[in-house]
């Protein structure tokens, strides 16, 4: 076996046997990614659904149909319940709001030309004002769809007009002049609907379009276009790149400390008396670090893909991001190994540096949440470029040219850090 491969294989074997090291190198980043992804919203396209509970107090065909519309709505996660249950669930924060379809909803809906409109009651958690506004809009949307169906059905309209004409006739207290105008209006409307029916039967509907078919104010045609997604598909798309970044940091710190450990325990001395160059010894350590970070990254991406709905734009882009990040952190590992003369010193200094890089690089909090000056400072952190490259592959759908900037920076960081670290390592050895 090539000495560099033998050195790397030795380090990987030791890592696999170090249960604590293995846990923090591979399992902990995965747990972080899953935990934070779940906390910040979990899966689901387009940012998730709003949980509501619906109470049908009307119990008519119309109210049941409206409930069915809401249940089928992709924006909502609907459960049915009683009013008591609804109030309790919202009060305890289990649901964002409750909607009560009030008694008389169905009857009111049958007569859009007169009487009270169909009514629902919305009770929302005061702490979720924005969601309450969204729910109100969603309810209006599905109510108007119901109205649209009504205007598309001339038979229903004619029945409703007949009912309205009857109610006008029986309204004793109505002003005779107003009654006369209502009767004229409903009569003309009734005639128009009959005329429309006749025209449709004569297959001349095109002259009127769809007649009164729905009073559609604007017909929006759905055009098929390629959507350029610039927003994560779900919270895991943010938490997994961050988890990978934490894994890279942990692995770099671990291997940096292990190199110091080789020095303090004397094994490095034995390696240096072998007929291999010092560069080969360091390259072996870097290769082990590189292999571990690549494995870690792919394990997280595969788990994210299979279980948490991540959809990397391409395997090639993901590999480019992963390999670039691994190169960067292998170089950083080399630099960390010369920061302290003991494992404790190297570990302390290394983690302090890495946590700062992570904090300013978006490893702890997504960069877009940070203040502007921190986003500017983040340019110096390889964690930022690593996360950007991974996000570019996972949800930003970067092109190859767009990937070149973060990946190029990462590779440059890796090469420069390795060169400086190797030189400093020689210096430390000589001193």
């Amino acid at each position, binding site marked *: 076996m090539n000495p560099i491969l*033998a050195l790397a294989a030795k380090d990987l*074997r030791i890592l696999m046997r170090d249960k604590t090291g293995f846990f923090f190198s591979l399992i902990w980043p995965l747990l972080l990614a899953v935990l934070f992804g779940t906390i910040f919203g979990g899966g689901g396209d387009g940012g998730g659904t709003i949980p509501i509970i619906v109470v049908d107090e009307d119990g008519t065909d119309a109210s049941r149909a409206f409930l069915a519309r809401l249940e089928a709505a992709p924006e909502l996660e609907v459960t049915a319940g009683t009013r008591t249950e609804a109030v309790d669930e919202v009060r305890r924060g289990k649901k964002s709001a409750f909607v009560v379809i009030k008694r008389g909803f169905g009857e009111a809906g049958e007569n859009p030309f007169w009487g009270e409109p169909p009514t629902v009651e919305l009770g929302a958690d005061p702490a979720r004002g924005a969601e309450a506004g969204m729910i109100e809009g969603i309810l209006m949307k599905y109510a108007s769809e119901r109205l649209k169906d009504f205007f598309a059905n001339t038979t229903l309209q004619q029945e409703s007009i007949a009912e309205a004409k009857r109610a006008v006739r029986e309204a004793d207290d109505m002003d005779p002049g107003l009654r006369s105008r209502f009767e004229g209006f409903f009569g003309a409307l009734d005639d128009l609907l009959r005329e429309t029916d006749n025209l449709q039967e004569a297959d001349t509907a095109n002259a009127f379009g769809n007649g009164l078919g729905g009073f559609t104010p604007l017909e929006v045609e759905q055009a098929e276009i390629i959507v350029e997604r610039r927003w994560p598909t779900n919270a895991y798309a943010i938490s997994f790149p961050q988890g990978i970044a934490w894994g890279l940091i942990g692995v770099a710190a671990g291997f940096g400390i292990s190199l110091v450990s080789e020095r303090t325990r004397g094994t490095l001395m*034995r390696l240096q008396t072998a007929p*291999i160059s010092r560069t080969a010894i360091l390259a072996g350590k870097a290769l082990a670090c590189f292999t571990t970070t690549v494995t870690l990254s792919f394990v997280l991406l595969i788990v994210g893909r299979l279980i948490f709905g991540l959809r990397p734009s391409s395997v090639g882009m993901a590999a480019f991001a992963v390999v670039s990040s691994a190169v960067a952190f292998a170089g950083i590992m080399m630099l960390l190994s010369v920061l302290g003369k003991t494992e404790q010193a190297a570990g302390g200094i290394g983690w302090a540096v890495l946590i700062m890089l992570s904090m300013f690089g978006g490893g702890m909090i997504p960069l877009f949440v940070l203040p502007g000056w921190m986003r500017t400072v983040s340019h110096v952190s390889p964690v930022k470029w690593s996360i950007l490259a991974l996000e570019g592959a996972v949800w930003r759908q970067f092109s190859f040219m767009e990937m070149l900037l973060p990946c190029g920076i990462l590779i440059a960081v890796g090469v420069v850090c390795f060169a400086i670290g190797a030189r400093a390592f020689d210096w430390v050895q*000589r001193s």
Partner: protein
Amino acid sequence: MAGAAILELKNLSKSFGPIRAVDDLTFEIHEGEIFGLLGPNGAGKTTTVNMAAGLIEPDGGSVSLRGGGLPADPATRSCIGMAPQALAVYDALSGEENLKFFGTLQGLRGKRLRERVAWALEFVDLVGREKDRVKTYSGGMKRRLNLAAALLHEPPLLLLDEPTVGVDPQSRNAIFERITALRDDGRAVLYTTHYMEEAQRLCDRVGIMDHGRLLALDKVEELIRTHGGTSVIHVDRGRGEERIETDDPMGELVKMHAEGKVLTFRVDSPDLECVFLNLTGRHLRDD
């Protein structure tokens, strides 16, 4: 004198800042010889060993292996086998895995590697425990493994830095036997130790260092004769114990016996420790 010189140090010097760790050191080690390098803490022994192994570059002078090769050159370095004072093995690996790894770095492959690993395990009496992780080994077993890792590639020169620190008498004795066997096999051994009785028992020649300088270098018996001082007779002739220093303890005892009654006596002959203390002084060295 043993065979040809395998390691030559000429006017070797090394400083660390203001400290002169090694000062104009010259000696050579031959095939089939155990060369003991003795000295108090901070005398410069480890720096000398590290320069001999090519781990540290000397400020002045030269190190040559087998008549000209430089130890810093990886091609030449394979003639060195080093057992550092620290237990330079991996606790998480088994004894066999450690040896296979170090053997691979020495360029051994395939059947040859397996044979050498088996030989080394047998040589240091670790057969039966070779599959166990090193962290389960006793101190003596780790020391023997540390030695075995230095022998895998059959180097003609062994650099053994305090190879018996912290081991029980049985393991120490086993290590002595192995080192003697290696010497008898024609290998050269540079042996540093604090234990005078080890050096006296094992070493063909001994160099005594202090403050980076070589104070004396010769065969053990010559060093004792030259620097050991006189023998001391502790005798009781009915007047309490008397202490008599003499170069001829036998003659002195015969003379005392002829003069009158000798109840008890004990003779303390000079040894290597006397040589060491006479040369380096009796004040404490804490660094």
